[in-house]
């Protein structure tokens, strides 16, 4: 089932790679990925459409929430 993740992160070199890498390397396919700065230019929003089984995805979301430069992870459907 496709899931959409919306992730707020610090808008810095390396952050994008770390977050996307988390999903790309763990049997979770990324169908679409967009990143853009928010009104606060120091913060970016990344939107990922991913496929993977739900427990694996939940684990990845927990891992993403642990990343130092991640502010928020929202998952839909949760």
């Amino acid at each position, binding site marked *: 089932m496709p899931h959409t993740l919306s992730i707020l992160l*610090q808008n810095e070199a390396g952050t994008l790679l770390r977050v996307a890498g988390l999903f790309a390397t763990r049997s979770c396919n990324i169908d679409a990925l967009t990143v853009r700065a928010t009104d606060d230019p120091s*913060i970016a929003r990344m939107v990922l459409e991913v496929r993977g089984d739900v427990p694996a995805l939940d684990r990845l979301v927990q*891992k993403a*929430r642990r990343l*130092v430069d991640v*502010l928020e992870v929202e998952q839909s459907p949760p």
Partner: protein
Amino acid sequence: MNAQPNPPAIHPRAGQPLTGAEVIVQVLADEGVQMLFGYAGGAILPVFDALYRHNATHAGEDGREPMPLVVPANEQGAGFMAAGYARASGKVGVAIVTSGPGATNMVTPVQDCMADSIPLVVVCGQVGTAALGSDAFQEAPVHHLMGACAKHVFLVTDPARLEATLRSAFMLARSGRPGPVVVDCPKDVQNAALRFHGEGELALPGYRARLRRSDQAALSDAECVAFFEALRRARRPLLYAGGGVVAAGAAPALRAFADAFGLPVTTSLMGIGAVDTRAPLALHMLGMHGTAYANYAVEDCDFLCALGARFDDRVCGAPDRFAPRARFLAQVDIDPGEVGKVKPVHWQHVGPLARALDRLTAWGRAHGVRPDLAEWHAHLARSKRDHAMNYDRASPLIQPQAVLEAIDRHAQGRAIVSTGVGQHQMWAAQWLAFREPRQWLTSGAMGTMGFGLPAAVGAQLARPDSLVIDIDGDTSIRMNAGELETIARLELPVKVLVLDNGGDGMVRQWQRLYYGGRFAASARPGRRRDFVRAAQADGFAWARRLDDRNALEQTIAAFLAFDGPAFLEVAIDPDACVYPMVGPGASYAQMVTGPHIASREAAAPLAAAGAMF
């Protein structure tokens, strides 16, 4: 946690012009760093030069340097020394290495610290910012490599952010769930002309918000009521303590909590020392090679509370069959990602362990909670006696367990012990007593062979007055054998014990069990290393090999009593196995206790008693 975590309100050097390298050294000093581990190279020379000058100008009257640098044989050694220092002291370990190979040699210790939640700060040199991405000499993608395994990595490209970045690295390493933080520092940033501020950290809004949330988390009355309601109904409660208890400094709170309500405690490999292993209600380690009585207690318990423990696959290989009779599972952890990750729980709390435990103790006391657990205590006492650890005491060959018993008689649970990885590590975990946390230093979640020797160096430097023993395997020790020379050079009184079973014992144990006894890669016929001569060549004045079991007691006594570095190789039974064993993916009901430890099946009356539950 370090000696001087709070620099004075206005830093005496605030406003001074410093180079980037001098800024790095000053921040290290401000963070209370008292010992550095590192290896030089072109891309980090400015930092080492600034350190040299700092140590020369700030040396004490006795010539003592404020931040002595310990140089290993290999950067991996520096990483594990810093980790051993951190594990034994509770302070942040610091390692400084050069770019390229210096940094890549540090990947293993960084991943090891991440896996065991050990606070570490690594400063790496890097090629100049203009050369980044040009395949320059000794350029490695540190940001990518370390980003995948560290708690966090910074590549400092803006010299103005260097000071705040390094200070933040310490905050990240020690706060929340501790871990390793890498600061990748291009050479031109080290040489930049800066003005020192003496204060300031990076914003890190997401991390700080989460930290604030968990730091402020407090157990409500309703949560305490629910916890004690379940405990009141329980007849066979059990606490399962992990490395988080040690990391959080929560051992005293755990002991007070367990004592207040008479709760027995089993610990994971990383949790050893959280309670005094000699206490009547301490069941020692659980899991794949846990004691039979700890694993039976997990089978029997009707209430299980995990504290700073994560149900990893060496403890909980079959999650759906783990603690099958537990009607109530509780978990307290600093990391929300660990709660319910493996095993769904009925009650949970995310926050600092010591505070949660203090609160539960106070609440239970105030409400007169006094569970009557006499029957459970009696059952556990019987189980400890009937399923006690044991081994082949009649064998003419030296048994590894006998060596450890002899060490224990001298050390009395007071030694700091590091290990390699394999059978010797599990025997040491099973057979040695530990009175306090931070005495047992082992590569738990990564299982990195070669950890023992450098970790012992770091531990001895952190606690110079303690007896530090590296209990190593004959193949693990070779992975960082270069550090034998470091021990002798620094004249550290580390005791290095090699349990020599002629190879990769743990690999052979698995090959015997699961691969029809085909010793692929683990049988290495031919010439063997002469450890004693190697140790002597490296400068060990006391180096012996023991093959006669009758000389065991006196040899161990002389070994431990020697005033200086000592090396002892003990030729042990090459076929000795680690028991009990719960196979990978198996449940505790499938535990094999081996030929010398009574299982429940063997002791029929007890099996019946177990079945009663």
